[in-house]
């Protein structure tokens, strides 16, 4: 029991910044991840997300690609990676567009923009997202 509490305590220090303009998606994932011992900070747009990242120095950023602009998430990731203080924060990118669908941008991380840690498709189940988070920040 004590051990479990300790574990929870350790996890609680893990901070996740979730940047997604879907209020419901952000809210329900916050509720879920908090129940698993994470601290979750929500931002609904890219600009605010970057600001919050600078303020809170999260352990992980979960970032939606399509926000007010089609590729806003990409710009946010680029800016985070360009910031010396933030560029070591791992990023999980979420998108509701499947890779197979042809769109005017690439989903494969390449040198021209940024190496994000994971690309995940929406909708994503709570467990699957947790699993991916734990792979990166155990």
């Amino acid at each position, binding site marked *: 029991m004590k051990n479990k509490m300790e574990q929870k305590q350790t996890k609680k220090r893990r901070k996740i910044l979730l940047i997604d303009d879907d209020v*419901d998606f952000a809210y329900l994932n916050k509720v879920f991840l908090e129940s698993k011992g994470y601290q979750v900070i929500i931002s609904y747009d890219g600009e605010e997300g970057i600001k919050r990242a600078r303020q809170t120095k999260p352990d992980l950023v979960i970032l939606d690609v399509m926000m007010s602009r089609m590729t806003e998430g990409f710009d946010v990731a680029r800016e985070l990676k360009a910031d010396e203080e933030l560029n070591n924060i791992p990023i999980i990118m979420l998108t*509701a567009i499947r890779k197979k669908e042809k769109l005017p941008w690439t989903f494969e991380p390449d040198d021209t923009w940024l190496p994000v840690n994971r690309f995940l498709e*929406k909708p*994503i189940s709570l467990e699957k997202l947790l699993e991916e988070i734990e792979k990166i920040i155990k």
Partner: protein
Amino acid sequence: MNKKGSVLVVDDEVSICEGCKKILLKEGLYVDTAKDGLEAKEKIRREKFDLVLVDLKLPQLSGEDLLHWLHSSNPDIVPVVITGYPSFDGAVTAVKEGAYDYIPKPFTSGELRRVVRRGLERKWLIQEMRRLREEQEKNLKLLSQERTKLKSVINSMTDGVLVVNRLGELVLYNCAARQILNLEERCLNRPLKEAVGNDLLIGMINSLLAKQKKMTLSQEMDIDDKNYLVNVAAVVDDGKLIGAVASLKDITRLRRFSETKLAFLSMVSHEIRSPLGVIEGYLDLILKGIVKDEQQIKDMMKKAKERAQTLRQLVDDLLSLARMESERVKKELVPLDLRKIISEMVDLYQDKAEEKNIKININLEKIPAILMDRNDFILVFTNLLDNAIKYNVKGGSVNIYIKKEGPDLCLRVEDTGIGIPPESRERIFDEFYRVKNEKTRRIPGTGLGLSIVQRIVKAYQGRIKVDSSEGRGSVFSVYLPLENFAVEV
């Protein structure tokens, strides 16, 4: 006219004339006689002769003069000279004057027959030759006309056309091909590799030529920002491959269209997946017992239901759009009492308005009945009304006007809501575009309402105007030309 030929015998000696006539008649020829040059001329003018036997010594008009005249005015008639004094001089003169042959007096019937037969044969030969030459000339002319026509047709084609021979040399191309491939002036009859700078096309043609059989290859190709469908077909003559013909069809617009369609489908799947994921997520939290607080559960159920409703609205909107795209669905133009419909619709939205304590004011002028599809008008009006409520502030108001404005009928929906940021005003009619900011974040919507409104208004040759001021509200005015749709009562 005698098919075997007609002969005129010109001699002042009657016995010669009659003798010749007798012999030649037996040959089945038509024969006439003349006793001097003038009579001969007269007869030649009246009748058609193939051959004239002329005695050089004639009264009235000499044989030489007659020959001379014949040569210039009747070149088709074969002249044969009868000479009384067989001499070299006479023969030379006769031939100079255009005689074909000569027969010295006295002659046997056999000699006469031979000379006449030879002369007539020559005449038929000349005629046949002339006929053949004329025919050939006509054919050549037709051929060159055909060639010009073919060239014009090929050059008028919008598709690029290239023809390559078996050796891989460019032997024909049209204007479109020259433009598409930027061909140089002197590229004709040059190897494809030098003439055409497009490796992909060269590869296609070469691989077809290498196969040595009747076949076609087809490939899409990008050339200078445009997309082409390239077909290469073998040119086969007598079972042998003699070259290849390539056609380049501009499919840029088609490609753009299909890209737009793909992007649209991607947006649709995004717009469907997001709410589905959220609904699933909320249900998961509740079913797995992660959320236990009853009020929180209720709250989540409500949010999930809202997303389901938006999803249903999305399906409805997509169907409306699909119906507008489909040509098969005809509009049912009936005289509508817009004031009545507006009142009915406002009643339906009253509950929604009251939730936010919004007052709806209706100012309807008396207007003529309008010819419109009922569903179209309802879609236009309810989308505007719904927005005016959704994007309004608590305690705000919505003003609805309908009136004549100049040549138009004007439907105006005013709200006292959050307004539209200037940078978004042009985009609000785009499919799936939604203003996303702090104030709109929690307002549900499909991003399709205003594009539906705009499409309908355009279909009725109308226009839509937006005035907006952030923090104060928006005014949407729809103008429909009364001239087209008003029904005089």
